[in-house]
């Protein structure tokens, strides 16, 4: 049992200075995604019904490759931040919560890396 007042324990340590990081990055990626989603939907409309060649030549253009890379990166960073809060809010079994948090973060990282690799392969024509 600790008889020290909780305030006395916290005093002098200072804040971690990262309290707003999660919130702020969710908004930064939201603004980026809002702009990129307009670009994405616009191009998706012309790719729907098209085949392999259309998809390939679209992604082979350097500006599309760069924007699609940014879209995937922002999308999964934003999704990961959102899913983290959903898990924190609704999963109250500690081991399950930690397991889910790890799965979401590892999966997001892997999907982003795989997507960037795929886009790069298409853009470089290999």
């Amino acid at each position, binding site marked *: 049992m600790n008889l020290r007042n909780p305030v006395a324990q916290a005093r002098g340590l200072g804040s971690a200075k990262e309290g707003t990081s999660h919130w702020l990055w969710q*908004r930064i990626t939201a603004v980026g995604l*809002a702009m990129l989603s307009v670009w994405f939907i616009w191009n998706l409309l012309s790719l*729907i019904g098209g085949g*392999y060649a259309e998809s390939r030549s679209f992604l082979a253009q350097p500006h599309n490759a760069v924007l699609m890379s940014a879209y995937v990166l922002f999308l999964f960073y934003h999704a990961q931040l959102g*899913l983290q809060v*959903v898990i924190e809010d609704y999963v*109250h079994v500690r081991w399950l919560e930690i397991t889910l948090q790890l799965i979401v973060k590892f999966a997001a990282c892997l999907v982003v890396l795989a997507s960037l690799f795929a886009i790069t392969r298409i853009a470089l024509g290999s």
Partner: protein
Amino acid sequence: MAMSSVNNHKKRPISPFMIGPYYRPQLTSMTSIAHRISGLILAIGGLFLAIWLQVTSLGPEAFECFSEYAGGPLGFTFGLILLITLIYHFFNGIRHLFWDIGWGLDIRKAYRNGWIVIGVTITASLLLSIFIWMRLSA
């Protein structure tokens, strides 16, 4: 987590969840939970974007295999749900960003911009669906 375990320990009453028998459904709470649910659906939908990138890099055979499912009735239905979900999350997300800079926060305005988001979502969904339908049938 820390707060709730303290409450459980002392058996204090906690405020009931916004959805359930204690609260009447409100536009504000419903658009809020819909934002979460649409976010969850879009996280799954993002995987389909990633699969599309994979099959495009893998080659024509893999792409055909993918478009067989994506172009079928199941893929079409899921794609349409994803599109409507994205439109809702997009416009309600902009509503959230306006709240973050302090605009439209009072009850009357929060209800009004909630209805605006619903109206714009339905309109944009209909227009895009008609456009896609026309493209696919042409």
